């Protein structure tokens, strides 16, 4: 019987190339999520009528609390990091002195934020929100527009 390795040397070449390329070429995809999704329930809140108690019951504990110009701010936040990178290089520094290296990578951190401003009496005075996760990673990375 004739060995398939003799008939298909391509597989042997592929194996050798893959083995040699390991460490020289790499592509990585990383995702990191911190925090919970910010619910849209805050859309039901009304400035001047919603109280601090109602907000805490609906949304739970905020991720951050701060005082800003006499008002108390509850901050609900979720962060989403996306990272991808491609690198290609042949590490010849030990035997050659220098090697060539090419790499490209992108990283984008997006935030879903809801800020609720309350008066010292505990009445909602302002709402600010941003849903950064609606921006797709690759489209944002390759966009020329600032802030998109």
């Amino acid at each position, binding site marked *: 019987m004739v*060995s*398939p*390795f003799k*008939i*298909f040397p391509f*597989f*042997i070449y*592929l*194996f050798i190339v*893959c*083995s040699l*390329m*390991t460490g020289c*070429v*790499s*592509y*990585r*995809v*990383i*995702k*990191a*999520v*911190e*925090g*919970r999704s910010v619910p849209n329930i805050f859309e039901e809140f009304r400035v001047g009528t919603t109280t*601090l*108690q109602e907000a*805490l*019951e609906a*949304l*739970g*504990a*905020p*991720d951050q*609390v*701060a*005082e800003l110009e*006499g*008002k*108390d701010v509850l901050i609900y936040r979720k962060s989403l*990091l*996306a990272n991808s990178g491609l690198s290609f290089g042949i590490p010849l520094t030990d035997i050659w002195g220098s090697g060539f290296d090419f790499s490209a990578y992108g990283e984008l951190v997006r935030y879903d934020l809801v800020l609720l401003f309350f*008066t*010292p*009496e*505990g009445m909602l005075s302002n709402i600010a929100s941003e849903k950064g996760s609606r921006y797709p990673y690759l489209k944002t990375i390759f966009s020329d527009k600032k802030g998109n």
Partner: protein
Amino acid sequence: MKRFREPLFVLLLVFFLQSCAGWAKNMDYHPFDASKLDKLTPGKSTVAQVTEMLGAPSNIVKLSNGNAYIYRRSLSKGTGIWLLIVSFGNYDKHYDQIVIFFDKKNIMTHYGVTLDANKAAYGLPF
């Protein structure tokens, strides 16, 4: 097709032998006692009673009409997979949080609770 089997098997074997996977878990965490939370009474509980029940807060923030005591625990889980020249990483971090609001007389006025840490999960970045 039989001729392909042997080389294909070798390739798959090499592929998996050169692959690697890892899991990591990081806990800044011991769960809040839910029975203690029921004892918190707005308008009655004091700073001393709260700190006796829950211990030292993770952070204290000065507010317009008092202070907020923040209790925070976190649980994060990471997953990594290396397949020859491609690698995938995923990191998921969630929190258990209690924020307690006190007035200037150190009497609790409100509190909010989020128990979300157990939602941290291993996974892939897709």
